[in-house]
């Protein structure tokens, strides 16, 4: 699992963060991500992130649910075990619509939650490094990823000029891992020593 070097700017105002994001992108630095305590409208487009395809996935799950329900009920009630209910024909679609609807919703909902968790790498015991714990409380954290060509002090000054309250350089694990923060710290420190 790779450990990379980041220059992390800490902003305390949303109004400063937006122009800063634009400036950093314009200057050509690679923004790893921005961490905020709450969702900010328009930040995704300012960061240049593409629209999520989660809803396409949801549509496919829903269609799957519809097909499963209609397919299974049709097979069960017309072929496998036909029973007369209230004098209706074996194939009586109106009676199946509620179940079809429920299964569509169930498939779409469960499928989308699982896909969302997969995309965000959320699961029990899965851990990810965070740059600044205050991004879960009251500050906005912008992490610039360093490449071989990046001049650290230049980026540091750039972020400070853009309005960052404090700027730090950090080595962070970008992937997720299973385990606990307190026990895995030592591994991380070893890796950091390897790259620096």
């Amino acid at each position, binding site marked *: 699992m790779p450990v990379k070097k980041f220059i992390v700017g800490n902003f305390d105002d949303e109004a400063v963060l937006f122009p800063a994001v634009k400036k950093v992108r314009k200057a050509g630095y690679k923004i790893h991500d921005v961490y905020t305590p709450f969702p900010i*409208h*328009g930040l995704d487009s300012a960061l240049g992130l593409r*629209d999520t395809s989660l*809803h396409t996935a949801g*549509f496919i799950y829903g269609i799957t649910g519809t097909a499963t329900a209609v397919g299974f009920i049709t097979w069960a009630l017309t072929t496998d075990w036909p029973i007369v209910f*209230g*004098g*209706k024909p074996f194939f009586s679609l*109106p*009676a199946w*619509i509620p179940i079809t609807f429920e299964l569509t919703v169930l498939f779409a909902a469960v499928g989308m939650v699982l896909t969302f968790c997969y995309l965000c790498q959320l699961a029990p015991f899965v851990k990810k490094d965070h740059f600044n714990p205050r991004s879960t409380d009251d500050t906005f954290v912008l992490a610039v990823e360093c490449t071989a060509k990046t001049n650290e002090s230049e980026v540091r000054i750039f972020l400070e000029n853009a309005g960052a309250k404090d700027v730090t350089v950090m080595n962070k694990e970008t992937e997720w891992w299973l385990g606990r923060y307190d026990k895995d710290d030592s591994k991380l420190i070893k890796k950091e020593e390897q790259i620096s």
Partner: protein
Amino acid sequence: MTLREQFVIPKRYNTLSIALMLLGLVSIIVLYITTHGSAGTVEEKNASDARFWASLLQNSVYFLLVTNAVMFFICATTLAWGGWQLSFRRVSEAISTCVPVIGVICGAVLLAICFSNNHSIYHWTDTEHVKHDPILTYKAGFLNKGFFATWTIITIAGWSVLGWKIRQLSRSTDDGALNVAEGKKYMWNNTVWAAVFITLFALTVMSSIPWLWLMSINAHWYSTMYSWYTFASSFVAGISLIVLFVVFLKNNNYLELTNNEHLHDLGKFMFAFSIFWTYLWFSQFMLIWYANIPEETIYFKPRVVGAYSGLYWLMFIINFLAPLLILMTRDSKRRYSTITFMSLLIIFGHWLDFYQMVFPGPSESRVPSLLFDFGIALGFVGLIMFVTARSLSKVPLMAKNHPFFKESVIHHT
């Protein structure tokens, strides 16, 4: 950025609306002549006469309910303190000025049908017949000419007066900016009057009015879903009407502060309430289909399997499948072309919906030619275009002193 606050009616628009109104008038006259010229037995004459009045009934009720649903949209969003709709609120207000105009036409048509000697549309107006009909005798406390006329007049007058009051409140802010105390007082007034309108709306469109005007065509039959179903129909069409006017104004470089975000939310309303309409449509159908009681299934016989089945399923495709599949994506709600197309389709689809509510009553075994009815519908469209543009041009296009106006400007879906 300078805002164009005053709408000037384009010449071609005016010509078009007047031409459509004339077309509607011609359709009415031609339909009257074709349905009243021929000789025949009294019953044939009555059926032919009923076909004429049913067409007027369907069109005037539909367009009255649609324009009134726009006022409901204003009041519902006001009660929910929704600020997002303010950048185009004057458009909704202008559409709702059609309510008194179409209300007069609709009221006249309804009273004419109610008090005529031809009982082919409203069987319960035949007092001799009601005496021998235990079901109608039982319902006579509600279904009688006196109550029908009184309640119709009260309803239309109530909608018009309360709508006028709410528009008046909105215009009262045009003179100057409000301070905090005035703003609070203004919001309070707005909320109270919107609540009064919604109360009347609940007592009329959401309950008694569809029973009286439409469900009583099949006087023996009843459904508790009916009023909600009618309301859902008119509400979707009302939102579509707002979308059409917003897109029209945007294309003529008005409404600078209304953008794709607002259109997207209106599109969501169209999408959601199309599905809501289907939910009610299906609930009404399924319970009756399941129970299979003859006096209830009689309603669906001409519609689902009889002469009207083609129309019925066409309407289902237009009103459910098309909005579901086409309006599902984000882009289609934000693109002018798709949202305009869907608005037109939905307004037409719910017009068909009202058609199949009204016509199987007076003409059960044969679908009348839709040509004249469509012509009359275009007449009403022209009337709505004409009245709405007139009202739009009289007041500033944006209620820019409303306390929530900024919320609408920075609105983001």
